[in-house]
């Protein structure tokens, strides 16, 4: 429907103030709420992610787009069946123990949320035990996403993945990793299920892993 395209455009452009009204318009003209969410917002954020990947836009534009989507989702929420905003599932996100850096992780969280996940962000310097505890409190979690910024934090990332792998719920979840010094090679080495090199790819990867999970 035409007005869904308008919503998508406003999300892409990051027009947080105008998105709300556009979403209401779309609802009023009879558009299906789930379609507004998927085509007007999640797909729009995927386009934003693509543009970010090829350098057309940068971090600030990505952030304002994510913020605009959040505003749109607020208007949409009462019309959606419960849980459908996080319809792709739950994801636990953390920067591993020994590392305080979080900007990248925060961006990843936002992009994954925009891709239709419910993101539980445990913050920085998070010990493996806390992550495992969080999973046990949220046993429907599909993915655990871990971040490390310094090469010197990589051993901690390895240990965290190993600690999670030792739990019997390992087979029920997927583990994805990322961060400046991380490589696909390292991710494979430590037994992660996936690696992505930026926030946009992380969102794509999360969708893929959740689909397969």
């Amino acid at each position: 429907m035409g007005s869904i395209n308008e919503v998508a455009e406003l999300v892409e452009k990051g027009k947080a103030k105008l998105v709300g009204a556009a979403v209401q318009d779309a609802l009023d003209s009879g558009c299906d709420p789930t379609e507004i969410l998927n085509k007007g917002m999640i797909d729009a954020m995927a386009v934003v992610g693509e543009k970010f990947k090829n350098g057309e836009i940068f971090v600030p534009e990505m952030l304002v787009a994510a913020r605009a989507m959040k505003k749109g989702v607020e208007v949409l929420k009462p019309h959606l069946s419960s849980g459908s905003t996080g319809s792709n599932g739950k994801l636990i996100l953390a920067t591993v123990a020994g590392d305080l850096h979080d900007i990248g992780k925060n961006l990843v969280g936002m992009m994954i949320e925009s891709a239709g996940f419910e993101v539980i962000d445990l913050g920085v310097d998070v010990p493996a035990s806390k992550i495992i505890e969080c999973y046990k409190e949220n046993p429907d979690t599909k993915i655990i996403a871990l971040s490390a910024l310094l090469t010197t934090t990589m051993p901690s990332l390895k240990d965290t993945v190993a600690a999670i792998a030792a739990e019997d719920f390992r087979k029920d979840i997927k583990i994805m990793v990322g961060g400046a010094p991380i490589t696909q090679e390292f991710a494979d080495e430590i037994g992660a299920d996936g690696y992505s090199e930026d926030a946009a790819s992380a969102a794509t990867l999360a969708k893929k892993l959740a689909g397969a999970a």
Partner: protein
Amino acid sequence: MGVVIFIREQKQIEVPDGTTILEAEIQAGLCPDAPCGGQGKCGKCLVKANGEIVKACQTPVHSEMKVDTLISSQKHAILTEGLNRPVAFKPGLFIHPVKLDKAIAGDNRSDWERLVTEVRKASDLEMTHVEPNLKLAASLFDKRKEGEDWFAIHTRDSILELKKEKPKAYMTAFDIGTTTVVGYLMDAENGTVCAIESMMNPQAQYGADVIMRANYALEHGVEALSSCIQTAIDELLHKLAKKKKIQPEEIYQVSIVGNTCMHHLFLGISPGSLVHAPYNPAFSERLTLKAKEYGLHIHPQAQLLMLPDIAGYVGADTCGCLLALRQDLKDEISLMIDIGTNGEMVLGNKEKMATCSTAAGPAFEGAKIECGMRGAAGAVDHVAYEDGSWTYTTVDHQPAIGLCGSGLIDLVAQLYKAGLIDEMGHLESGQENDSIFVLVPPEKAGNEKGVYLTQKDVREVQLAKAAIAAGIQLLMKELGITEKEIQKIYIAGAFGNYMNPASACAIGLLPPELEHLVEPVGNAAGEGAKIALLNTDELEATDRLVRGIRFLELAASAEFQDTFVDELAFPEEE
């Protein structure tokens, strides 16, 4: 076993099969540049092996390999001069005439005790605790046979040497930068600098930045990195002595400044605590040590002075800058930024001071930028755009082969001014490929690919400058100081000296309103290392200085992310 023949360097080395070419280069003592520490990520270790261009760090040696390292003996522009603040000459190293007279019967004082009394008298210093120098004490009996009149070379708490003829004594100040090391030889009698020597920090073969090197140390032990830098300092000491035509043994004091990681590695301290949250130093206080215990072969009794560190990422080098500028003595509110491989900054005046460290990052040092390079011959160091034409200069006027930090900032500033980069950093060059701006086409350049800037390069510059800009904003907030109240911006460090303030302000690296306040102060850290030797009051002031300054850990600041993101964009034009 495999054999690697390095054609250019005319060296050959045998290594076990599977050793990488990079490792072979290190073992052969070639000190290769390895910015990403051998991870295969940066592409700056390229060599021609048996005719094929490969990454040295990713290519294993087997049988016999002929390797062309492709390195021309490039001269790097190393910054040695700094702002000269007039400092009273009140050193901690003295030369005084003393008498070694025979003991009087009944006076049971040792030769040593009588010498100490003589030195106290001659120097008019309290000298309450004098460290025993057994070797010297044992020599006093024989020395007296040569005559009574001697000269003592001493500090306030140790007697280092006795000479029959009036001796010369020298001190040396060092700044151990992540990328470059500089040493200044000074005459102990009047404090004049009589020789300067510098070299690229050979720890570069273990990685370009402190994290890489810390990583190496944590994986392989700290010895390799420690002995590497100790050997380098010793080499510089010998070079300085040779230049001034003196004996290394005539050097009696050494002072060292460096960032906390350089400080720890030199001392042989494992940098584990520096690279794990919350990133604190293992040891940060000011130290007086024995130079010989740290691989320095000068006078056997020579003293080694290490200035104190402030935090994990604000080190003795920043302390050196504090000494060079003494912002803490002024009414004037000033901001000091040392843009080297890291970006430390200090804001304040005599009422309050705060400091933080930002990841200014490798963009200004050449890494992560496609045509990026350090300030070596052929680097484009300034760019201008006027009346529709682009002009540039290069280091040593050699044909352009890349962009160094100052050239990079100029280029981005000019592209932004010309409207080819928009406020959000989107590049539309109007050339064949919109996402690439070619400054020097291959036919005019000194290399095969020419010199150009990509969209991704612009993003790297945005990230680097936003970090510094955010640091400045947060320091101001911490102290409750507004932009208008800042009266001076000192730019220290290698990069800062060549950077064009107008360009820095145009891209928002520095607050655009404050362009007229910018003053480059050169190697302020090195100046501080010198001042520490020239004046003991200043040296001792460092203890107070580091304790009295507020440290801001940006990684723990809730506001950093928002401020950082805000600073990514380029400032609106007036």
